[in-house]
């Protein structure tokens, strides 16, 4: 226990000197700065890039939820796609049935998914390792098909998620893709700032203690089960927001938007860019969006069958995942840290 604390102090100390996100004021400053930069950026790039940028932001939010749950609190979930779906459907229903504003819909997506995560987390709080993985896996495959059971969820066709026209005050030149980008980027910034705050707070330390040595944590008075549920609930809320953003971008939600592969894709993105540090979320989102592009340009260069075209992105992501596990298992920044 003593040795562990020593290591933890060392890490925090290192963080203080290397990381720039070490105080709440600095975090807020970065958040505002980042937002302003993105605003400027959005006026310079073309519509397609804006659309892709929105996807990057969406995936970044999703990856943040995984980092919070698996990286910080040590619970492995293979079913975050299902949590995204919960948020997505909640958001769609809010717009269509309650006729509320799209931003409110996104908030509802977060809250409902968080509530769902709270219940689920309470149920699985005492599971560990493979049992949790199995349960979330089962959730991932079963939840989307529930949409077929309840007509209000729109069955196979799904529901429409339309954020409506861009606000009039932005003028006619303001494209909907820019609007998507603004919403998604703002959401991503808020989430990253929020999760970073959690990580630096007492919560974050408790989560990490729980992750590394649950027995010792319990002996120190940590209510492990309750903390696990808390982490699960927050992570689910964040995932729900990501789901809401996703269906905003594809203007509709349906069961086929949330296959098992989405959950695995999110996990891959998180592992590849560092499961234990938020610094990689944006990069993670970028990786997930950029891989299909890379695959396409690779193919035009080397030429190939249609089979190759369809399977290559999956191959690249999986290969990246394996390489990440083998060479940068604890995050890319560890390559530069020497073993002492």
């Amino acid at each position, binding site marked *: 226990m003593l040795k562990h604390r020593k290591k933890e102090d060392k890490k925090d100390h290192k963080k203080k000197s290397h990381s720039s996100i070490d105080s709440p004021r600095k975090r807020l400053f970065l958040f505002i700065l980042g937002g302003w930069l993105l605003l400027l950026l959005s006026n310079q790039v073309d519509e397609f890039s804006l659309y892709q940028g929105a996807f990057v932001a969406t995936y970044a939010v999703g990856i943040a939820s995984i980092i919070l749950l*698996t*990286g910080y609190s*040590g619970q*492995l979930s293979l079913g975050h796609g299902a949590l995204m779906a919960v948020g997505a459907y909640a958001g769609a229903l809010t717009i269509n049935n309650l006729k509320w504003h799209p931003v409110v819909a996104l908030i509802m997506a977060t809250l409902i998914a968080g509530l769902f995560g709270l219940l689920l987390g309470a*149920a*699985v709080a*005492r*599971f*560990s*390792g*493979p*049992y949790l*993985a*199995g*349960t979330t*896996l*089962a*959730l991932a*495959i*079963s*939840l989307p*098909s*529930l949409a*077929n*059971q309840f007509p209000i969820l729109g069955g196979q066709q799904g529901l429409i998620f339309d954020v409506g026209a861009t606000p009039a005050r932005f003028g006619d030149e303001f494209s909907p893709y820019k609007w998507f980008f603004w919403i998604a980027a703002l959401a991503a910034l808020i989430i990253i700032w929020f999760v970073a705050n959690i990580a630096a707070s007492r919560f974050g330390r408790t989560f990490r203690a729980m*992750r*590394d040595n649950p027995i010792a944590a319990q002996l120190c008075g940590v209510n492990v089960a309750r903390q696990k549920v808390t982490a699960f609930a927050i992570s689910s809320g964040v995932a729900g927001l990501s789901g809401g953003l996703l269906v905003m971008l594809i203007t509709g939600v349906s069961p086929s938007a949330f296959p*098992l592969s989405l959950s*695995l894709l999110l*996990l*891959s993105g998180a*592992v590849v860019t560092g*499961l*234990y540090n938020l610094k990689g979320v944006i990069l993670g989102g970028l990786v997930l969006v950029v891989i299909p592009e890379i695959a396409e340009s690779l193919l035009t260069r080397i030429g190939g*069958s249609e*089979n*190759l075209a*369809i*399977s*290559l992105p*999956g*191959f690249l*992501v*999986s*290969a990246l*995942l*394996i390489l990440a*596990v*083998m*060479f940068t*298992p*604890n995050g890319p920044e*560890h390559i530069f840290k020497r073993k002492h």
Partner: protein
Amino acid sequence: MTQFITAVLTSLSSGAIYALMALALVLVWRSTRVVNFAQAGQAVLTTYIGYEVIQRTGSYWIALVAAIISGAIIGAFIDRFFMRPIFKRVTSGPIVLIAPVVATLGLLGIIEAVIGIVWGLNNQSIEPPVSNAGLNVNGTVIAFSLFNAFVLGTVALAMILLTLLFQKTNIGLALRASAYSPEISKLSGIKVDMVRTLGWAISGAAGGLAGMLYVPSTYLFPNAMDILLVFGFIAAVIGGLESMVGAVAGAMVLGFAINFVTTYISTTLVFPTAFVVLILVLLIRPSGLFAGKKGRSA
């Protein structure tokens, strides 16, 4: 009445296939403490190999043998040349617990992508060796075929062989000992690494058998075994991940639950049923049905 009997028979038949996948997962779990998600990839790959054999020889039986043997080889290969290096490299940090699992997920993706590149994503078919048509019992046709009976019989035979192997042979003792305590086994002179690779080989063979028994009832495409993996995993977890008996029991529980729900309630509730069964079992017995005092932490 016939509906009930049919439901029971189809439950046994699908439970049998889940049992094979569950067994394969439990074997690897016990020897390596890893959930081998690549199992789905291995199983579908061996089924494609079986498919190629059928294309060339026209015989399902030769293909079946080929699938089982190639499954064993591929399983051993993955342990020796993929898992072992990963365990050697990843020795510290919080990632240690999940790195192997994530690695198997990556391996799954690679195998399925390669299959997609080589064979394409179109549905292929493997013809069952015996009739897949419903049997005629006293004038009514039930949803249970000769092929289903064949599946049931084959899996039962495999179970008996595996039980004999584990309980009555020296190799079986080495396998069990290495799973319970690698350290004591090493200190007793047992080559634990080789034994573990053997465990992976047997697991791969089981997966190979499962594929050839499953695909004739459906189509062959790169992701064909994914659902079976999920059900096999759920079955293994229900049974407690610690024993072969548990794996079979869990598979039967799952098979019966799913088949009875689809027969009597609705055909679209397959996945939700699996989830509900899993959560109910784990809430009542968090270590699964048959787990002993070891508890559910890795």
